């Protein structure tokens, strides 16, 4: 502690020294905000101006060559775009909004970023500090509202705090388990003149983002694995966030252990990898769900046992010894008790484990996976991918896009049936190529997130696969595509229903389709109104060439596919049922 105190004293001395240098030019708090972004290497921000953030927008005007600002059509669009950018690139996404409604419009995206561990820095304007708490025009207690859904937040009333707050914000957003932070800056602080000096943050004394791995736990885990006859590895987004894709692959290949992924873990391991047995959870594959309840050792890497993955926890993997590799200690033993917990990032733990595991052949065990795979293929998959009768299926659209892009595209999805179908049937080749709202299940996420993803990865084909319901939740972001010219390819899978809710109504509410049928507008005319080329198809024979046209378009493009109205996604684990009770119909 003494060292800490001394360290603090030293910092104080430096700042005194700084104050004594009178040659430093003074800049406004607003300009300091922009300079902080430059210091953090930010080249792209998403936002929407308004009264209390105007000084920052005025400062941005002078830095247009350094920081590109994307004007979305709604603040929710701005944060989802920042999330899409972050998820596609691994960098911190940045969005800006004004006070009051501007800031509250960010809340859904902030909650989404927290639950899906996405690094985002949100900058919000606030009324002048003298007006705080007075119900001033466009005043809302932003920090109070966002605290439950942020990793960290701060309100700034003195511009001198801006550099340190931004340095901390970026460090917190990207380190450890990433997440969203909010910096709320009063308007007077944006005008205040300060001497600007920036120091990148590398540590915070109360924050421990990189735990020291306990090697004895790794040894215990290796021992369990080496004695195991039926080991099974399941992984989540922690592999992607921890850049542990190659460590995962090496571990699997050395050990010969079969694996499966959560929705957010998708793309960390290529789908075609022989030890990749597909998706876990409610609409996941048959083999990994069933065999979760038959394995003897379950190795969970960088995941949090969401209820959509586990089904009924009382019957989840009870027969297995559970090894949980997880960076966030609050996730360990939160849902599933770990027999061996390795509190560590996935990269370090997997690398150490790989050294200690023995290579074994699990022929019989692997055959169990293959047998169930075949059952699922015969009963469901082949009919989904290659239908010959009735209306178009979402799955065949996804298959064709997957084939035509050779699995190289970044697929951004919304929430619902199309999301599950895209996750099930697109064969991803590269990491960070699946972007979706997993934990929060935010309809309206897809379109703006796709804009952010494409701006982050202009070299990639970015496909927004979206339902007719979710599309209309943020449809105005077509305006962002129009204004920026960003070449997002949109595929609307239109079944004229809120399909997933309708599916549940069919299965669990006696087909009482309460408020799920949608009378939709003419999406092609709307797209045209936004200056985008667009086409609608409803027939199987038109599909292939329509997808070619979409993929070959230079600019943004909208393809509406009229699909079977009352199709269902299977397999399915009904809510509260066990993973072994997964239904094929």
């Amino acid at each position: 502690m003494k060292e800490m105190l001394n360290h603090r004293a030293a910092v104080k001395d430096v700042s005194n020294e700084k104050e004594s240098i009178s040659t430093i030019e003074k800049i406004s708090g607003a300009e300091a905000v922009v300079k902080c972004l430059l210091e953090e290497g930010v080249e792209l921000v998403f936002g929407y101006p308004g009264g209390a953030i105007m000084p920052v927008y005025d400062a941005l005007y002078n830095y247009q060559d350094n920081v590109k600002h994307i004007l979305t059509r709604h603040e929710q669009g701005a944060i989802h775009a920042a999330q899409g950018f972050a998820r596609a690139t691994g960098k911190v996404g940045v969005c800006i909004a004004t006070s009051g409604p501007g800031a509250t419009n960010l809340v859904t995206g902030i909650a989404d970023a927290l639950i899906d561990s996405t690094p985002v820095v949100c900058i919000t304007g606030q009324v002048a500090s003298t007006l705080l708490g007075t119900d001033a025009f466009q005043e809302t207690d932003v920090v109070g509202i966002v605290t439950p859904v942020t990793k960290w937040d701060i309100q700034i009333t003195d511009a001198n705090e801006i550099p340190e707050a931004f340095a901390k914000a970026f460090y917190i957003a990207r380190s450890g388990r990433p997440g969203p932070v909010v910096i709320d800056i009063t308007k007077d602080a944006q005008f205040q003149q300060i001497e600007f000096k920036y120091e990148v943050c590398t540590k915070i004394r109360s924050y421990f983002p990189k735990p020291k791995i306990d090697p004895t736990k790794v040894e215990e885990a290796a021992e369990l694995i080496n004695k195991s006859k039926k080991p099974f590895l399941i992984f989540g987004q922690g592999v992607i966030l921890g850049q542990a894709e190659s460590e995962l692959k090496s571990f699997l290949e050395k050990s010969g252990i079969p694996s499966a992924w959560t929705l957010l873990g998708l793309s960390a391991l290529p789908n075609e990898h022989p030890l990749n047995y597909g998706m876990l959870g409610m609409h996941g594959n048959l083999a990994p769900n069933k065999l979760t309840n038959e394995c003897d050792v379950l190795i969970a890497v960088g995941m949090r046992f969401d209820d959509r993955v586990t089904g009924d926890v009382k019957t989840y993997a009870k027969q297995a010894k559970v090894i949980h590799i997880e960076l966030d200690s609050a996730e360990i033993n939160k849902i599933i008790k770990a027999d061996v917990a390795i509190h560590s990032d996935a990269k370090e733990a997997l690398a150490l484990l790989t050294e200690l595991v023995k290579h074994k052949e699990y022929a019989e065990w692997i055959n169990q996976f293959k047998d169930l795979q075949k059952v699922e293929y015969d009963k469901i998959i082949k009919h989904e991918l290659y239908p010959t009768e009735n209306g178009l299926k979402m799955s065949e659209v996804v298959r064709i896009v997957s084939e035509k892009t050779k699995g190289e595209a970044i697929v951004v999805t919304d929430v619902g049936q199309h999301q599950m179908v895209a996750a099930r049937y697109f064969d991803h080749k590269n990491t960070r190529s699946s972007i979706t709202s997993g934990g929060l299940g935010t309809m309206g996420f897809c379109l703006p997130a796709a804009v952010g993803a494409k701006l982050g990865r202009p070299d990639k084909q970015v496909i927004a696969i979206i339902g007719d319901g979710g599309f209309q939740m943020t449809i105005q972001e077509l305006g962002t595509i129009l204004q920026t010219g960003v070449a997002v390819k949109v595929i609307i899978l239109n079944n004229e229903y809120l399909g997933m809710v309708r599916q549940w109504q069919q299965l669990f509410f006696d087909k009482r389709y309460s408020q799920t049928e949608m009378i939709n507008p003419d999406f092609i005319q709307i797209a045209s109104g936004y200056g985008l080329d667009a086409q609608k198809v409803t027939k199987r024979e038109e599909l292939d060439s329509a997808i070619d046209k979409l993929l070959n378009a230079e600019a943004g493009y909208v393809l509406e596919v009229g699909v079977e109205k009352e199709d269902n996604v299977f397999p399915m684990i009904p809510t509260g049922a066990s993973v072994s009770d997964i239904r094929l119909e």
Partner: protein
Amino acid sequence: MKEQFTISIFTENKVGLLNRVTIIFTRRHINIESITASESEVLGIYRYTVVVNESRENVEKVVKQIEKQVDVFRAFYHTTDEIIHQEIALYKIATSSVQNGLGLEKIIRDHHARILSLEQDYIVIEKTGHKADTNELLEALQPFNVLEFVRSGRVAMMKQIDNFSDTLHELEKVHHLE
């Protein structure tokens, strides 16, 4: 099974942090029985003392979610027999109600309480102790017509020699000095 736990949380002194900590309880629908915040023995580091009735399993999870907060150093939870704890209570009675025969002096003496303020209209009595003790005094003062009663949240210390400075030092060594 629910039992009483006292949670000690060591934090930075930051606006809004108390809210950030309390919502971790409220989102799980856990009622906070008492809460206090004060400086600790380490300059600039604050400690919150929170009392809840909850299962050990849930308390463990809550404490980890509290520790996860960026501005929280550490959080500890203890059952009541693992801590030394105290509360303070104030009682206001009308001066006019103090008549011979009711034995106020004896009550104050027996309860190890004291008179904090003696005014023309009223008397304020102070007592520190466990909740049961301050409740007993409240009971005993009923004949005097208690005008006002207030009790603080619990403050508590662990029954072990370690102080938080050592813990901090250890954290610093493990996480920041490499």
